[in-house]
């Protein structure tokens, strides 16, 4: 029906999907044929179609996380054909369209795989470890009210732009899923470097990086071995440079730690 490519033919596909009842039960790949998929559908709409079919036949639909379907909330995930958010660079699963697949394709769909992201059900994982890392220091310690006028804190445009680039992280966890060590360094470094670059965040920069890194380790994320898979798979293009900034911040914080044992 869509206007874009009138010649695009509906596709028949074979899906291999990870099904897992809950955290305690072992999961397995289950095969589902899907027919008549429009190339203009998004990947999640393709799963909607399958779920409607499953429901009509009385079967449990596949649980997957999603919300805004605009690529900004970070709720959607899915490890598609061995890649977080699928084959398109710089694209979340909700913005991935079926025109990037071919009629007859077999597509494997798995949840994020990481010890720190246990599976709740099917493709839904628990990413609350990310929230706890942010709670460890991903903020500027100010209360509401009593702050200076916004223009009393001038910030150079290039610094502001760089801080913005780091601040666009959507917290989806693709970096962890892409990493062979399930490291969360790119996620943590995005917040650390955003705030370390800005005058508002500099005041607490040392304790912030120490506390956030400590929490990252407590959560069980792996070490960084600098392969760069995280940045390559990041749907919003968070740069590897943030990890370098965080390492520098961390070393300097440790060398002059304000933590009193």
């Amino acid at each position: 029906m869509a206007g874009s490519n009138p010649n695009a033919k509906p596709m028949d596909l074979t899906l291999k999907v990870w099904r897992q009842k809950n955290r305690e039960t072992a999961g397995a790949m289950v095969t589902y044929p899907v027919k008549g998929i429009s190339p203009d559908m998004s990947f999640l709409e393709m799963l909607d179609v399958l779920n409607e079919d499953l429901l009509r036949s009385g079967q449990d639909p596949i649980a997957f996380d999603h919300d805004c379907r605009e690529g900004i909330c970070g709720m959607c995930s899915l490890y598609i054909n061995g890649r977080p958010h699928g084959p398109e660079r710089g694209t979340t699963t909700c913005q991935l369209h079926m025109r990037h697949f071919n009629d007859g394709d077999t597509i494997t769909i798995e949840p994020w795989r990481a010890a720190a992201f246990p599976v709740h059900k099917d493709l839904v994982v628990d990413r609350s470890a990310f929230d706890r890392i942010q709670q460890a220091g991903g903020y500027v310690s100010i209360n509401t009210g009593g702050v200076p006028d916004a223009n009393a804190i001038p910030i150079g445009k290039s610094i502001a732009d760089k801080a913005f680039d780091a601040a666009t992280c959507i917290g989806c966890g693709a970096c962890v899923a892409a990493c062979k060590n399930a490291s969360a360094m790119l996620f943590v470094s995005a917040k650390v470097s955003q705030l370390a670059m800005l005058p508002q965040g500099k005041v607490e920069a040392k304790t912030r990086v120490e506390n956030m890194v400590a929490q990252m380790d407590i959560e069980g994320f792996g070490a960084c071995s600098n392969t760069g898979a995280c940045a390559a798979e990041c749907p919003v293009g968070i740069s590897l440079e943030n990890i370098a900034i965080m390492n520098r911040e961390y070393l300097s914080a440790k060398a002059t730690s304000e933590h009193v044992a």
Partner: protein
Amino acid sequence: MILDSKIPEGPLAEKWDKHKFNVKLVNPANKRKYDVIVVGTGLAGASAAATLGELGYNVKAFCFQDSPRRAHSIAAQGGINAAKNYQNDGDSVFRLFYDTIKGGDYRAREANVYRLAQVSVNIIDQCVAQGVPFAREYGGLLANRSFGGAQVSRTFYARGQTGQQLLLGAYSALNRQIAYGKVKMYPRTEMLDLVMVDGKARGIVVRNLVTGKIESHSAHAVVLATGGYGNVFFLSTNAMGSNATAAWRAHKKGALFANPCFTQIHPTCIPVSGDYQSKLTLMSESLRNDGRVWVPKTVEIAQRLRKGEIRVQDIKEEDRDYYLERKYPAFGNLVPRDVASRNAKLMCDEGRGVGASGLAVFLDFADAIKREGQPAIAAKYGNLFDMYAKITDENPYENPMRIYPAVHYTMGGLWVDYNLMTNIPGLYATGECNFSDHGANRLGASALMQGLADGYFVIPYTIGDYLAQNPTTKVTTDHPAFKEAEQAVIAKNNQLLSINGTRTVDDFHKALGLLMWDYCGMARNAEGLKFAKQEIRKLRDEFWRDVKVVGVNEELNITLEKANRVADFLELGELMVDDALNRNESCGGHFREEYQTPENEALRDDENYAYVAAWEFTGVGNDAILHKEDLKFENVKLTQRSYK
């Protein structure tokens, strides 16, 4: 029932300051004895939860998403208004107030809107102090732009991701309080009922969306910051999970629902491409600064284009109708959202729509590219052009974009007084969840402003006033009122699970959405609304007879979650229709075809309808009771909006 808006006495500009002095304060040592529940963690909820925690209250915050950072405020693109007048271009608190009242077509409360304009300046200071990376000029100061046809540059922005950056700021403040132990966060938890004890809001019943467990939480006050109800229409720019359940179930417990028919339809969205479509994507209306809106001049040309017999490039200049420029020479393509949307519908109704479905109009940048060059256009709109290309697989630099209006925001919501308290003592509603600030039409970049104003700067004062007058005595969740509410929630879930019918929840939701869109969308008339009311009732009966919900309650059950939400939409939809039918005038987003000027513009009836319509629930299938709060305009003169 007499609706007391509790607007403070005195001149407009002094009301809020006076009120802040007159409200009762809770002694710092006593604050820790009060518990407050905040439902929803978007801009209005996260900012309220964080600020109340900072003040010393014990806060419990709830969201249905897996993290408070996912709330749909995150998707707001354009910006946030504030009367800073940093650009020295004549802005002021009064001008922002005036623009908002006028933009809302004179259906909002003067005092609330003035306070909104006043605190707007504090919001920007707060967000900058948090480290929100707003756009800046080379000198290091904040940048502004003009937005949504405003004559001053008062919009602060962070590229096209302002909502994301503001929400992450509020989320960081919330995280700090979670770390301090002042806020306890409950993600993946959905409110399914409000609990009242002795006529006051004292808690909520929730469902843990992972385990299915039904739990109660008690408090001294409850704040609903649960967003709007645009998903009644199934297709909207809202997130998939956005729903009205918390607000609707509070309504069923006695909270009045105000102006439900005031919905905003945004003109620049990507058109529907097929019946599998799950949601609609908005593109910032800044596109209308350079894009020209047109359709073919004749039905015949439009038909040939739709059939693929001709290409858009084959349509000669004289065969194109730039209808907004033709009809509104003064404002052209920059007419307000409601006018732009309605005219797109008119063109498509005439049979001159484009795209395979005929439900789209062109937004053409060819002239702008010719004038300024492709790099200049790419610098301004690159991310939007990329988004369009990603979704449609078309290059908007070579072909005109196709756009169509989509449901975007709901101005109506729970009725609240000046303190943002509903008519139920101890129950508050903030942000899009309430009705208070946008009248019949919201201006661009004002939603973020209202959410943060309510959460950071209004609720922290007004809730203290209520708590100070109430004892610190706690109610335990063993109280019969909690047990009764839990049993009702469990019974409803069991009923949904036991029907085992033939139609899916989405199937019903889509049917409801179509009815709402066709009869209670961009244009409404009495006959259509009456028809829709009957059809909604039939659909609701069928839902409870024939819906198919699989699985059990005690698990992560996505169908059961949706079924609860759609069950509520099926009741709310009827109230929207009732409200639209009652309001025999056109204003803002509410366009009744019977009430228009000879030039087809909205015709207000200030004599008879300058009131807030607040509806009281009387049972499913029974007609709601209308309560009126008359709107008094003492500081602005009511005029007919004209964009000719």
